[in-house]
């Protein structure tokens, strides 16, 4: 069918013309595919009509199918299912859709379904589905936990997955994959129809893969029904919006370059430099990586420019919801001059008044940097303007690297997750709460997703065993109860309490448990992640909301503190602190350092010359084909600094592996520290790394085995296990009216981890924790690539007489983990000897 000749097209374009809107080419392409009942992916940035590309397509299709009575038709059942990751976006999108529907005089209704939807609205939707349902992945799963949910999908024509680039790569993406596999199979088997499936995605490095992941369940059904020839070609259409955004990047230079950079130290001193920037633009967003720092910046800005009081605001995840909404509202209306924020404003609705963005500290990745830049200059043809403000002088190298990456459009890929058993366990329980499931049938559906393409029958049965008998063999003293097997083989959750508990826990976003921070003498300070505070001991000092505090005790989910006089204190490592350089960022950074050796006119590198000179005098600035290793002895012990520039996560793994490999030469115990530039091994005895063994220590050989052995003794898997345990339903947060007994059902993730490790080491969730460490945390592929690169490069070992500019930031902010080849008992004994010496 030719789009332009159809009634629907004529009616829609007429309406658009009345509103001085002409469809973009990509929108018309998408509409054409939709009326041809194709599936695919629309690649378009936010704010250029991506919603219309699918939504109007759905309307055109409906009008074409009902040319005479499209305006009168009521209660047509669900036509368009719109999956969006952001609750905040749902209302805006819904309003835009309703506006069009009203203007066309149609009877379609738009419903919103997310955590905020009221009980009565849910009930109404249950009785009569609206034509358009805007839903989050979590609520979609809740829909699948309803009785008789299949009939909802009877008339469904299109599923749209908005912001697919955001969803894919995370467990919410896996949730979407599973839900899609269910819906298309329900349609095929029960109603013998098949809807269209469309993703909407911003540009990422692996756009084709993104399409493949999304469409996989659909493609598998097509392959089953079509000829082999038809299935051979790439499935699904790709529609690209050729809207190119102009971006300006400026670095903010400190007046003086400190030769010993120190994370977080510099930034706030530059507050005077950003005031003119704020003054010159209508509205400015100041992105800061950590919540603690946003508070400090907010205070610093107010101190430097008191006249801004009332015109600047704070926005981050620990700020109460109401205040955040107020900030967002005022951003819309342009009443705010500047907002100091964290990743909390990375996504979501666009604020048109924003003209300028300031990025404080490393954005850690090209895509994130671009995303933030894109928050400014939102009207058509406006330029996005972003300023980069370094928090320590070395970060200026990152600015140079980012500029290069943006120029080359060198954007990261989002690798899809594979075999997330925790999500699968949750999903199966969701189905069991709903109408129940037959394992045989569901196995085939699940296998049709990209995520579970390679799941083995054995692993699937293992999971079924986990949810039906609790993993272990039946024993007369066991009363495990979750999913029950009915006489006809239907797997179902019958226990109402268990079902209710499960419904409350559907979702894959596991936020860190937050604890309130209060003065012992009374007075609320803020909130802090349990993860952070659990690593501190009473007497330790930390900084929050700009205050140095001493931890006194933790009681009833409250951290009690007093003001600290200690000079050294730990700054909480929030989400931002834990982000790691992306592959692309790392590559560009190494390139930029290399460039510093050559004649260049890159301002950032010029400014850093004194620092580079000192580094070159004491040690060396590594070129692209060099690996720098520094041996430095201090009062603390013997340090080995290795600069691989691969990002903190890879360094964390590499440090463990290197420590393990060295410890096979001599029994030795290390502590580690790492940042995005490199890592440190610290020991109380000299570290035997020299020309004779260094290539061997960085060899790719036995990598897998060495990882297994070294990771086992670290905390990595334990940390991963927390999320998995929550998603997989092992950690239960309690619910109202069940207080006493609920308390008896609580346990910490670390305790569960310990117990499983000891008593059920083959548990599938435990195995997943290790797999996640291996694939995501250590990024095994990247690790391998790095080792290959190192084998080909020149390894330079220096013995500087004192700390170098490069090692200094590592010395300052450090995360330490333990790893030892000594017998536990011997080690404790030796530690004691050291203490009593």
């Amino acid at each position: 069918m030719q789009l332009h000749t159809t009634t629907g097209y004529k009616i829609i374009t007429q309406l658009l013309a009345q509103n001085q809107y002409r469809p973009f080419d990509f929108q018309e392409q998408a509409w054409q595919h939709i009326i041809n009942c194709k599936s695919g992916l629309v690649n378009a940035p936010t704010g250029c009509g991506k919603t219309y590309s699918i939504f109007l397509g759905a309307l055109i299709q409906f009008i074409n199918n009902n040319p005479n009575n499209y305006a009168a038709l009521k209660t047509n059942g669900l036509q368009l299912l719109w999956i969006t990751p952001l609750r905040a976006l749902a209302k805006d999108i819904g309003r835009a859709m309703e506006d069009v529907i009203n203007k066309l005089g149609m009877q379609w209704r738009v419903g919103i379904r997310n955590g905020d939807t009221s009980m009565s609205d849910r009930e109404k939707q249950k009785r009569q589905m609206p034509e358009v349902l805007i839903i989050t992945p979590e609520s979609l799963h809740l829909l699948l936990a309803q009785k008789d949910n299949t009939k909802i999908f009877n008339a469904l024509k299109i599923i749209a997955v908005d912001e697919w680039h955001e969803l894919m790569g995370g467990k919410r993406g896996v949730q979407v994959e599973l839900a899609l596999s269910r819906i298309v199979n329900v349609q095929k088997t029960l109603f013998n129809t098949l809807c269209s499936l469309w993703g909407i995605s911003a540009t990422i490095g692996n756009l084709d893969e993104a399409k493949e992941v999304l469409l996989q369940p659909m493609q598998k059904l097509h392959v089953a029904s079509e000829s082999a020839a038809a299935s051979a070609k790439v499935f699904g259409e790709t529609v690209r919006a050729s809207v190119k955004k102009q971006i300006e990047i400026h670095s903010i230079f400190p007046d003086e370059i400190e030769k010993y950079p120190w994370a977080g130290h510099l930034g706030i001193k530059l507050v005077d430099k950003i005031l003119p920037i704020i003054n010159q633009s209508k509205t400015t967003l100041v992105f800061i990586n950590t919540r603690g720092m946003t508070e400090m910046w907010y205070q610093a800005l107010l101190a430097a420019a008191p006249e801004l009081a009332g015109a600047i605001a704070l926005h981050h995840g620990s700020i109460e919801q109401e205040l955040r909404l107020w900030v967002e509202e005022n951003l819309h209306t342009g009443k705010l001059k500047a907002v100091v924020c964290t990743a909390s404003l990375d996504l979501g609705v666009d604020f048109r008044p924003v003209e300028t963005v300031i990025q404080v500290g490393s954005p850690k990745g090209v895509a994130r940097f671009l995303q933030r830049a894109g928050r400014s200059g939102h009207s058509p043809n406006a330029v996005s303007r972003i300023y980069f403000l370094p928090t320590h002088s070395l970060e200026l190298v990152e600015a140079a690297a980012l500029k290069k990456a943006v120029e080359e459009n060198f954007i990261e890929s989002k690798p899809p997750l594979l075999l997330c058993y925790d999500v699968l366990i949750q999903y199966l329980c969701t189905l069991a709460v709903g109408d129940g499931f037959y394992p045989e049938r569901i196995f085939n559906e699940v296998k049709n997703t990209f995520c579970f393409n390679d799941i083995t029958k054995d692993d699937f049965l293992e999971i079924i065993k986990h949810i039906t008998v609790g993993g272990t063999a039946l024993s007369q003293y066991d009363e495990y109860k979750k999913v029950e097997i009915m006489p006809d083989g239907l797997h179902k959750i019958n226990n109402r309490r268990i079902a209710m508990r499960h419904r409350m826990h559907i979702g894959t976003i596991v936020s860190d448990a937050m604890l309130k921070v209060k003065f012992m003498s009374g007075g609320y300070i803020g909130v802090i992640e349990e993860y952070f505070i659990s690593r501190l001991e009473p007497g330790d000092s930390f900084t929050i909301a700009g205050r140095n505090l001493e931890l006194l005790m933790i009681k009833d989910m409250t951290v009690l503190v007093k003001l600290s006089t200690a000079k050294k204190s730990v700054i909480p490592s929030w989400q931002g602190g834990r982000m790691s350089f992306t592959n692309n960022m790392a590559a560009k950074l190494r390139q930029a350092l290399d460039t510093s050796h050559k004649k260049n006119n890159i301002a950032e590198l010029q400014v850093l010359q004194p620092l580079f000179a000192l580094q070159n005098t004491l040690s060396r600035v590594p070129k692209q084909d060099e690996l720098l290793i520094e041996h430095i002895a201090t009062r603390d012990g013997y340090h080995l600094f290795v600069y691989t520039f691969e990002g903190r996560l890879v360094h964390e793994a590499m440090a463990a592996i290197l420590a393990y490999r060295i410890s096979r030469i001599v029994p030795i115990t290390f502590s580690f520290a790492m940042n995005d530039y490199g890592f440190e091994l610290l020991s109380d005895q000299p570290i035997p790394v020299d020309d004779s063994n260094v290539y061997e220590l960085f060899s790719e050989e036995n990598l897998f085995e060495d990882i297994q052995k070294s990771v086992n003794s670290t905390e990595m898997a334990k940390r991963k296990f927390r999320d998995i345990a929550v998603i997989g339903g092992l950690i239960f947060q309690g619910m109202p009216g069940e207080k006493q007994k609920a308390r008896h059902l609580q346990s910490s993730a670390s305790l569960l981890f310990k117990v499983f490790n000891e008593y059920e080491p083959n548990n599938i969730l435990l195995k997943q924790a290790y797999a996640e460490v291996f694939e995501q945390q250590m990024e095994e592929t990247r690790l391998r690539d790095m080792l290959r690169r190192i084998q080909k490069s020149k390894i330079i070992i220096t013995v500087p007489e004192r700390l170098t500019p490069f090692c200094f930031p590592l010395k300052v902010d450090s995360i330490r983990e333990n790893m030892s080849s000594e017998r536990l008992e011997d080690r404790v004994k030796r530690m004691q000897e050291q203490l009593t010496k």
Partner: protein
Amino acid sequence: MPSFIQHTIGNNSFILHYNRIVFWEQQKVLILSDLHLGKTGHFRKSGIAIPNAVMKEDMQRLVDAIQFFKPVQLVIVGDMFHSVANKEHELFLKWRNDFSNIKILLIKGNHDIVPHEWYRNAAIDVVEGNWRLNDVAFVHQMEDADEALLQSCFYFSGHIHPAVSIKGLGKQSLRFPCFFFTKNFAVLPAFGKFTGTYLMEPAKNEKAFAVVNNSVIAF
């Protein structure tokens, strides 16, 4: 490395064993705390698949300790059972039958909420609050200790699941359950393996004995 440590208080000598128990030699009494029996069962009944081997192994460790020390009595300073009764409690009853010659005394803890008949049926004597034997007293939480008894007796208690963190150079640190001793009282490590720990910081006149694998190490 010693698998246990002998600790003398007045005329009494106590053996601190890596199985997280104390043996009082003179009275042939095994003292233990925070078994949290039935905890795995309680979780499993609610659909949380904790490995049920935990309970079986806890029971086995108790058997080992009994066969090794041959006590006449067990004194349990609280939290013997984790929550309301479940089938794992029957496993305990079976075990109890095999060791019916040993007296069991439970100083009630905050988790001990099963009904009195149940204890009677299991031949467990239950005491609320404080209990004393010669110059040694027992209580679940030290804050409930009797002021007068505290003057004349050495106390054994539980409840907090003490642990110590052992630090070395280079900021290394590891955490182990411990027996925690002050001049007047001791806090026992939790016997049950499915239990969390609370970090203690021994002051100068306090002593911690860490359980490290199959050893007990003094600090």
